[in-house]
Structure formats: structure tokens, C-alpha cells
């Protein structure tokens, strides 16, 4: 089985992310980067599928050269190959241009049975790239997968559980397909020293716009109809008012305060 896992490098969830209000982007300088946490579940699921059904796992990311670090981590977790899509022409991509670029990369890998994405990235929080990618690649998609029940390799069929608000939905689809995963699906492994060694020795090919072909006007800024009008950090919450004193007095003050605000 040929498995592709799409990953994104995002600012550490422990870092204090600052916005650049004029450019409308995140300030990434000096902020530690990690693999998007949901993508770690995607990698783990890809590696588990390989372990159960055979085949190979290729991880792919679109991003700046330092996104290689994220790909190396994925290799250390057990992926077999990694590809980085990186080109100045890809800068400024919104989810439409990103899914376009990734789709070209996955086409170039070729003959894919299943594409796995995290349900969304923790920086943009759109959850659009996975479904957008399925559309571009003309793949069936199952989003928010919490469990893969079965892959029937002979009949090219996948059955999976989707985590939906009202419960669990069981969906089958024919392969090739794309799934996006939620964190209930597995517990990502800690890499072992041998896979770390293998990862550090791996050569990661970098594919640019020319390698992918495609239409230049669909890449990067030009291919991104979404405009970020404004980005800002909401003001920190102000502390509430503390009413002190004896209970009887304090309760009276509280009632008065609530009444004067038309809450009571």
C-alpha cells in the first residue's frame, strides 16, 4: 500500500505567538517550530497502516527549507521517505494554493492508495487543506477519522469511524481515498534511536514549482484568493471585580452590582 501523509510545521503550542499587524502574518522568527500536533497522529496512523498491511509511507510538506526538521521527525517516527515542496513561488499560499501545490506533489509521487492529513493545523485552524486536497486529487474523503476499522486491500475499500458532534459515524469508501484524523485515533510513538539515526542520514528531495509543473498563477500569493484583512491578538481579559467584606454586606453589594447592570 502506498501511503502519503501531509504535514505542516507550526509554531510550538507552548510558544507565545505574536502577530505582525501590518503584514497580517504570524511572527515566526525566534519561535520554536514543531509538527502540527494533529499531523503527528496522521504520521502514526500511516506507519501503523504500513505495519499492518505492508507498503511504504511518504511524508510531504510544503514550507520553507527549515520544514525539513519536521520531515526528519516524521522519518524518525517510522515514515520511509520524505519530500519537501519549497519554492519562493509558494510563498503567501492560502489553503486553496496550498492544496493545489500539495496535490501536484502527491501526483508526482504517484499511485497513492491513501492520503492522511491531520484534521487541521493549530496555527491557521481552517481544516480546509485536507478536503481541498481530496477535491484536487479527485479522491473520496473521510474527515475527522477516530478509527480505521478495516482496509480491504483486495477490494480496495476502507471503513472508518468519524468523530461527529452527535457521536460516531461509520463510513466506507473505495480506495484511493483521503482521510483526516483526530487525536482519538492513536497515541503517536516516541521514536527509537535507530529510526532517529536513519532519519538523520536520509536525503530529503526538495521539489520547486518547476519540478511540479502546474500553472504559475495558481501558486503562492497569485493563487490565493483569500486576503487576510486584519490580524490581531485579542486584548487580555481584565480581572473581575472582587467584592470583599462580611458575607451579608458582600451579598448585598453583589445584588446591587448585578441589578445596576440589569443582570438581575
Amino acid at each position, binding site marked *: 500500500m502506498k501511503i502519503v501523509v501531509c504535514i505542516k510545521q507550526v509554531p510550538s503550542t507552548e510558544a507565545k505567538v505574536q502577530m505582525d499587524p501590518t503584514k497580517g502574518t504570524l511572527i515566526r522568527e525566534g519561535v520554536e517550530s514543531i509538527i502540527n500536533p494533529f499531523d503527528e497522529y496522521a504520521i502514526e496512523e500511516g506507519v501503523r497502516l504500513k505495519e499492518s498491511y505492508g507498503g511504504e509511507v511518504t511524508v510531504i510538506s510544503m514550507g520553507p527549507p527549515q520544514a525539513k*526538521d519536521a520531515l526528519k521527525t516524521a522519518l524518525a517516527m517510522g515514515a520511509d521517505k520524505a519530500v519537501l515542496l519549497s519554492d519562493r513561488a509558494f510563498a503567501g499560499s492560502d489553503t486553496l494554493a496550498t492544496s493545489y501545490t500539495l496535490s501536484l506533489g502527491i501526483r508526482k509521487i504517484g499511485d497513492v492508495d491513501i492520503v492522511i492529513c491531520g484534521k487541521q493545523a493549530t496555527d491557521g485552524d481552517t481544516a480546509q487543506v485536507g478536503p481541498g486536497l481530496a477535491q484536487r486529487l479527485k479522491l473520496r474523503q473521510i474527515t475527522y477519522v477516530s478509527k480505521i476499522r478495516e482496509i480491504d486491500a483486495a477490494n480496495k475499500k476502507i471503513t472508518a469511524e468519524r468523530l461527529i458532534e452527535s457521536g460516531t459515524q461509520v463510513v466506507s469508501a473505495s480506495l484511493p481515498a483521503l482521510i483526516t484524523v483526530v487525536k482519538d485515533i492513536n497515541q503517536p510513538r*516516541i521514536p*527509537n*534511536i*535507530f529510526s*532517529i*539515526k536513519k532519519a538523520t542520514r536520509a536525503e530529503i528531495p526538495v521539489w520547486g514549482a518547476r519540478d511540479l509543473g502546474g500553472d504559475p498563477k495558481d501558486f503562492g500569493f497569485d493563487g490565493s484568493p483569500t486576503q487576510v484583512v486584519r490580524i490581531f491578538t485579542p486584548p487580555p481579559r481584565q480581572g473581575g471585580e472582587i467584592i470583599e467584606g462580611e458575607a451579608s454586606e458582600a451579598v448585598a453589594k453583589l445584588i446591587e452590582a448585578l441589578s445596576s447592570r440589569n443582570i438581575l
Partner: protein
Amino acid sequence: MDFDLTEEQQMIKKMVAEFAEKEISPVAAENDLQEKFPSDIVKKMGELGIFGTVIPEEYGGGGFDNIAHAIVAEELGRVDSSVRGIYSVQVSLVALTILKWGNEDQKRKYVPRLASGEILGCFGLTEPNSGSDAVSMQATAVEDGDSYIINGNKMWITNGGVADIAVIFAKTDKNAGARGITAFIVDTKTPGFSTRDIHQKLGLKSSNTAELILTDVRVPKENILGEAGHGFKVAMSALDFGRYTVAAGCVGLAQGCYDAAKKYALERVQFGKPIAGHQLIQEMFADMTVDIEAGRLLVYRVGHLKNKGIPNTREVCVAKLFCSEMVNRVAYKALQVFGGYGFSGEFPIERYYRDARINTLYEGTSQIQKLIIASRDLGISAF
């Protein structure tokens, strides 16, 4: 000079830190309280290849460098010194010593199994009446046909009660002083080999410390490690490996103390602001930072020498002396930051403080480190 960690060192650091955080940290306090040997953790460390980090790939390891080896000890030491101690003995005192002095058969037989954690090793040099003065040991090994018969007691042996093999030092020639000592690899299941666990230690409570009692233990001659009569050299080189990870473990433990104190100091409010904002508290943090960073640089310098294959006994002693004293200073200050809460078992700082103490005592006391350093520099030995 290059002060950056390589990509693989960074990846090892991240991996071991994640392992320590997820697998060790949640159970460390309870294991300490119960004096419980962390068998599950040791098993998982074996599965992840952690014991094999610095072991060459041809002997079942990962083939990482000596700085990665120190980083492992540091990250383990940051959360649990007992686990770090198990690692130090298994890898530095036993596996690396067999790699350096063993013949090919011995290396093939033992090192891959030590790297995978399939077997545990211990190191028997110290005796009830022989510590710093190792040459005065009383254990004997008497030639008998194809074997040696070993008699003697070994004291304060980390992993002693749980080990599958022991590197044992004994006198094969009582009249030859240091040149009369021989090292053996002893299977701990050999008849006559027994152990007694030592309890009520001040720290390292979840690591196993035992006395080894060897009564007419028959060891085949092929189990001599190095050559007969060269045991003292084997022991001293083993300590060069061991002291290195002790020093690294001290840096990790000191970092753990610092991190715990920092978290507390930013949360604890007195006089209307977090205590981290008080000048005398800040002085303690600055002192701790300088101490930890200096210690880390000393350790990595030794790693650099080891990577280049340059003799480093003196530099290891410098790092071990500094780091073991340093971690006690840092643990003292970190606990001071906690005030009365530091004196209780509510925070890990209490365990860290107790665990810090052993480091100036084992693998050569601070005083012995000083005598080695000064004798190397002055050309006159004090003992």
C-alpha cells in the same frame, strides 16, 4: 569551536526528553517513596534503544557520539536520578568497559544484549573496607584449572540485586598491589553469587543498590576482562566513562531543580508580587544559571575529547568534581526558593535535593577527584 548541537544530538535530546516526561516523570515520586526498582521503565528504555545510544551499530547500538550519550544522561537526570544511575552503570561502567577491554567474543556476547536492555549489568569494585583506596581490596581470585575461584564482598553496587552480569575486580596476586588485580565478567546466576539489597538510602531510592557476596564463585578463564593483572587499569578507564555520565546527570538534575524552582517562583506571590520578582530570589536564580551552564560546558568539552579519542581522565575529573558540587549548590538554592513547601514531599524538589547528595561521593569522592586533578597538573601523586 562549534557550540551547536548537531541535528542527531538535538533529535536524541528531544526523544529522551519526551520519554522522560511521558514515561518516567509520572511515576518517579511513587517509585522513590516505595523504593521500587523501575523495571517497566528499564524495559521501555531497552525497546527504544536508549541504552545503545553510544554503542557502535555493529554491536547493536545506535552509533551516536559521546555528546549524545551525555545528553541522554542529562535528560534522564532531569526527571529521575535513579533511572539516570541505572543508565550510567549499564552503559558507561559495563557496556563501554567491555567494549574497550573485552575480546571479540566477549563484545559479541554481552554488548548487544546490554544495548537492548535484555540483560542488566553491574560493576563491582568497591568493598566494605575498600573505597577510595581501591588497591586495598580483599576479594581474591585463585586459579584452579580452566577457572578462577572468586571470594569476596562488593559494597554499594548499583543494579547489584537486579543484574545479570557483574564486572568484578579481585586480586589474582596479593603481593603485586595494583598490578595484582584482575577484572572478570561474572554471570550473577553462578553458584556462590548472592546479593543483599541496601535500603534506607538518603536518595536514589528507586535504583537498586546491593552488596554482592561471592563465595567460591567459579568463573571460567575466558571471562577475564582485559588481561590478568591489568584489572586496575580496567577499573580506572571504566571510571573515566562512568564519571562522565555522572557529571552529565548532575547537569540534568540541576536543570530539573532550576526548572521546578522557576515554575514555583513565578506562581508564588508574596509582598504583592511573584517571588521571582524579588531581588534576593533573582540572585539565587542567576547563581544557579551560571553554575548549570558552566557545568554543561565542562561536560560537553569532555564529550568532545572522547569523540576525538583523546585521553581525558583529568578533564573528566574536573567535570565530575564541578558538576557534583554544583548540583548540591543548585539543589540547595532551588529548595530555598520553595521555602517550607520545599521541605515537604509535595514538590519534586525534595527528592531532587536528596538525590543530589550522592554525586560528590560515588565514582570517586570530590576529594579523590581533586587529588587526581592536582597530581596530573603537578606531577606529584598524593597517594
